[in-house]
C-alpha cells in the first residue's frame, strides 16, 4: 500500500543566511485529518450546492490524485547548489 512520506528535509541557504528544517509530515497528517473533520459540515453543505454542476466527480478525483501525488513524493530529492545559494529538498 502506498503511504505518504514521513519526513521532509528542506534546506535553503542564501548569501548571508540559511535555514534547515525537518518537517515531520507524520504529525501533519493527523492535523489534516482533524481539519477535515472540523470542515466536514461545510463540505456536506457544499456537496448539494455543487452536485448539479458536475463538480462532485472532479472534486473526488482531485482529492484522490492529490493524495497519490503526496504518496509519490517519497524518495524525491532536489539538490541545487551554486556558489552562495543552496536548495535541498528531500522527502523520506
Amino acid at each position, binding site marked *: 500500500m502506498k503511504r505518504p512520506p514521513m519526513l521532509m528535509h528542506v534546506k535553503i541557504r542564501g548569501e548571508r543566511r540559511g535555514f534547515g528544517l525537518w518537517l515531520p509530515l507524520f504529525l501533519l497528517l493527523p492535523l489534516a485529518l482533524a481539519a477535515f473533520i472540523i470542515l466536514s459540515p461545510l463540505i456536506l453543505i457544499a456537496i448539494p450546492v455543487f452536485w448539479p454542476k458536475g463538480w462532485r466527480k*472532479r472534486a473526488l*478525483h*482531485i482529492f484522490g*490524485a*492529490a493524495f*497519490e*501525488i503526496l*504518496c*509519490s*513524493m*517519497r*524518495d*524525491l*530529492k*532536489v*539538490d*541545487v*547548489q*551554486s*556558489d552562495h545559494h543552496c536548495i535541498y529538498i528531500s522527502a523520506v
Partner: protein
Amino acid sequence: MDENKKRILEMLAQNKISTDEAYRLLSALESEGSAAEGTPKAGTAARMKSKYLRVCVVPGHEREHGGKCERVNIRVPMTLIRAGMKFTSLLPPEARDKVNGALREKGIDFDMRNLKPEAMDQLLEALSDLEVDVASSDGETVKVFVE
C-alpha cells in the same frame, strides 16, 4: 543439451578454445536465449524496475576552481511523474486551453487534451530508455537518465 552448447564444450575438450573463451561463449548464448524468449515481458519488467528520473549537473574542474560552479542533483520518483501526468487530466478545460496557448507561444505545438492514459504509459515506458549525457568543453557534464 543445446546443439551450440555441445559444440562449445567439444571445442573446449579438443583444446581449440580456452576455458575463458568457452565461458564467454556460453554466457553469450544464454543471454541471447533469454532475450529471444521473453523480449516483450523482459523489456517491460526491466522498465518497470526503473524507479527514478535523475538529472545531474556536475561542474568541470575549471569552473569549480574558478569560483562559479553550479551543482544539480535531482531524483524524481517515476511514480510522481505518473501521478502528475494523471493530475493533468483533471484540469478544467479552460485551464487546459490556457496551458496549450502558453505552450504554443513557446513554439511547442502540443494539445494536452490528447494526453490519454495509454499514451502516458507508453511515454513513461519510452522514458525508461532515455539517457542524455552532455559534456561541455570546460568539463561540465549534464546527465539525464532513468535508474
